[in-house]
């Protein structure tokens, strides 16, 4: 089970990663997250949507109307330059976080610590 506290700080990072190469829309992003994490993490629609709104307000992504197969226009999101640099910042932040936390994690073969 993943702690939602940790994930919360990185939902933006996950979404931005998926937008790096091409614009995408709500369901596609949520499906890719599910696939990439082997269904270990499923992003709720409300989480995804509030992240869209937040990042749009911060200028990290832009929305536009795109084609849709069922005839209804669908909202697509694309990453901005500010979004890309924010993404890189978050990656560095994660590397640092990981490095720090790792120091306090007992590895399975070091049984004497238990």
């Amino acid at each position, binding site marked *: 089970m993943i702690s939602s506290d940790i994930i919360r700080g990185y939902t933006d990072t996950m979404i931005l990663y998926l937008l790096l190469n091409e614009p995408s829309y*709500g369901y596609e992003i949520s499906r890719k997250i599910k696939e990439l994490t082997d269904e270990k993490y499923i992003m*709720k*629609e*409300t*989480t995804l*949507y509030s992240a869209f*709104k937040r990042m749009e307000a911060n200028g990290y992504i832009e929305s536009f109307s795109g084609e849709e197969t069922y005839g209804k226009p*669908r909202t697509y999101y694309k990453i901005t330059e500010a979004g890309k640099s924010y993404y890189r910042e978050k990656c560095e932040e994660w590397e640092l976080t990981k490095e720090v936390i790792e120091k306090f994690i007992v590895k399975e073969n070091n049984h004497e610590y238990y």
Partner: protein
Amino acid sequence: MNTIKNYLDNMFLGLPETEDVKRAKKELLAMMEDKYNELKNSGKTENEAIGIVISEFGNLDELADALGIRQVVDNKSDINCVTYEEAEGYLEDSRNIAPKTAIGVFLCIMSPTFLLLLLGLNELGFLQVKEERLVAAGLAVLIGLVAAGVSFFIRYSSKLEKYEYMQKSVFQLDYNTEQMVRRVMAQDEPAYTSAVTTSVIMYILSPLSIILTALLLNSGGASIISVVGTLTIVACATYNLISKGGINNACQVLLQQGDYSVKTKSNKTFQIISKIYWLAVVAVYLLYSFTTNRWAISWIVWPIAGIVFAILKIVTEEK
């Protein structure tokens, strides 16, 4: 698919309809529909697909800040929540009480008939009694029947009192409960529809008694008595409608549809008008009947009042 839309509608119930909120709702629905379609295509049953979509949806709290509706969302949790047990209890009580209320209404509608009968027979010369005495006897029965009818209302409406807030204020219903209510409503639908049809036909045919008497017999006494026929048919039709409409009405209350929609409940002007209105109608009916003694015609106040009420409702809602 409707279930998903209803779920979302219910979740957004009572939120301000700003552009942001409308857009959020549209996009969330699109995401849910996409997910639903894909789950269906991957071989899930309709129920499984709906279950997954709803369980993975999340909650309004997460959207509150993004949509600038933090305050509304926080207040929304203060809104009454009708539980599954409460809803079941309300449906059960409504089912039991509707026929009793119907008897009360039946008695009230029938209340002037004895008076009319006496006046008619007297007019035809069958009774050799002073008219004042007949009126006195007829009124005694009228008051007695109204009292009996009202006692039914009082005795049984007190059992529904605890549910009154459902008719007056906006509340929330969780997904399971709503599904249960929709099932009950669907089960009741055929019986309810046939009851409405029967009653409407009876209402349409009810003036025939008066019309035929007027056409065939040119007699004042007979035409007074013919009103008894009309009232009896109206009373039976109304009894039928109320006693068999209890479940449907309760479902409408629970689903906040029709007369109990959020829109109507929020229409405070109309709430106040309707209270005063019906009291005024009763006053007009009694005042007119007692002062002119024209009981044979005064009942017409009721159907007219009903139509005017419907118009009032539409007019105040337009605003």
